[in-house]
């Protein structure tokens, strides 16, 4: 049969705001070309026209599923540039909120990963549990998705007094829910048939392609910015960096599952160690000339901010190295000689986020 060229997206139930051009021979995909840019908002350019404190609501739109982690990366980079250190309580609050956000983001991923083989129940349950974490975020910040909570020099407001109790209760409940997901998805025979051995990325390939985050760890490479370059107060907590050796869709899914468990662990420790004190310091408007590269471990992987300052109150150049963009390199590599049914599974096992790719 002749090779058909199929446009998988941007108007497609499973593609998100991006397109993959597939060359299909019967049911076998022989070639895949990702075509992105449908949600390009030129955040890097817009940032050059805004003051440092005004960029916080802007950068969190890079990846609004993960906005705490994204703003944390930006705020840290500016703080290093300005040479200010936020108070300890602020750092703890940042860690707590970032880890809760990692769970939120992974839950969203779990929902999409669950529906990609065609199971809508696994879409709804994680979305339902995600609401609990959004409630927690709303309790602290006032918004549910884009928070603008981390500001340069600390956080915008202190934690409410009843927050620790409620967070612990939510986490207890969520641990039980994780067992349900384990039974429903990770131990289900049919999911196993769909996920095991699909999209295998060997250790050397993963490093060579430059993929990051859970995808890299799913191939057996132990890289985690929280351990390699501890930021905020991450060096005070005990946690594991989960890795899997196989490198297929199932391995990547397992890594994210264990990461949620580790996040619960970190939040519990941080809530126990939460110190008293101020939650923000005054930050200057201007940054001294210089350059800084700061990275954080966002839910999708390592996120880097490269800021060049010329001494004014606006960044001279802001470069965002986003995790989904770096994971994009794995698309053409993995989507070769697989069946069409594997395309959505591979796609979402890599957890791409088109907004994050395009910036």
């Amino acid at each position: 049969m002749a090779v058909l060229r199929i446009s998988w997206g941007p108007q497609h139930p499973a593609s998100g705001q991006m397109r993959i051009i597939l060359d299909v021979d019967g049911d076998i995909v022989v070639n895949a070309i990702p075509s992105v840019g449908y949600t390009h908002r030129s955040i890097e350019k817009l940032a050059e026209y805004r003051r440092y404190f005004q960029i916080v609501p802007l950068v969190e739109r890079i990846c609004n599923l993960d906005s705490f982690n994204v703003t944390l990366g930006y705020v840290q980079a500016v703080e290093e540039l300005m040479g200010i250190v936020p108070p300890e309580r602020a750092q703890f609050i940042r860690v707590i909120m970032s880890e809760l956000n990692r769970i939120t983001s992974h839950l969203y991923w779990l929902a999409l990963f669950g529906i990609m083989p065609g199971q809508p129940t696994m879409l709804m349950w994680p979305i339902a549990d995600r609401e609990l974490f959004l409630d927690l975020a709303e309790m602290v910040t006032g918004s549910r998705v884009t928070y603008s909570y981390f500001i340069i020099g600390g956080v915008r407001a202190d934690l409410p007094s009843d927050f620790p109790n409620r967070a612990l209760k939510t986490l207890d409940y969520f641990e039980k829910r994780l067992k349900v997901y384990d039974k429903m998805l990770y131990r289900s025979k049919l999911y196993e048939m769909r996920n095991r051995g699909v999209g295998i990325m060997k250790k050397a390939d993963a490093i060579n392609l430059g993929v990051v985050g859970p995808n890299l760890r799913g191939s057996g490479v132990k890289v985690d910015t929280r351990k390699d370059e501890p930021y905020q107060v991450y060096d005070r907590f005990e946690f594991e960096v989960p890795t899997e050796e196989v490198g297929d869709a199932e391995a990547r899914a397992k890594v994210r599952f264990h990461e949620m468990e580790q996040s619960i662990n970190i939040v519990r420790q941080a809530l126990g160690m939460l110190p008293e004190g101020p939650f923000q310091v005054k930050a200057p408007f201007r940054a001294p000339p210089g350059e800084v590269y700061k990275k954080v471990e966002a839910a999708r992987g390592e996120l880097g901010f490269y800021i060049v300052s010329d001494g004014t109150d606006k960044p001279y150049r802001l470069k965002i190295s986003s995790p989904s963009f770096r994971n994009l390199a794995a698309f053409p590599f993995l989507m070769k000689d697989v069946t069409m049914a594997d395309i959505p599974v591979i796609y979402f096992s890599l957890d791409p986020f088109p907004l994050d790719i395009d910036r």
Partner: protein
Amino acid sequence: MTSETEIVENLNSKFKEAIVDANVQRKARVIITAKKDKVLDIASHLKKELNFDFVVSVCGLEMPQEDAFTVVYHFWSISNKILLTLKTKVPKESPEMLSLTPIFESANWHERETHEMWGIKFSNHPDLSRLLLPEDWSEKPPQRKDFTLPR
């Protein structure tokens, strides 16, 4: 484990003419400025001898009062946990340099983006087609400083 100063010394001795400036910014950050014709050699040395595993980001930069674009590569080493910034200058009238994709596969997409946003041509890059901008984009590369946004 290779320390930051060892990397700087190693590079300085190996590529005496090519390296304009090399210094340690802080812990785990090394900044190197090199001449553009030797970048490919330096990159392969970084990969083979100094254990740098992949390119973290590639970006263009245009410093004021300079008649050149700066191309900034960031490399990360998993074993040494060091981020190396490699800067090189390309003249504004003919912004062209050799691509690092043959050595670092991970530079592929970043160089495509830089090509699109800054108009810097990476010769011997496998595919420099449009990535983020619309296909009918005909204005100058948008990240350059002379491309101004309407207020």
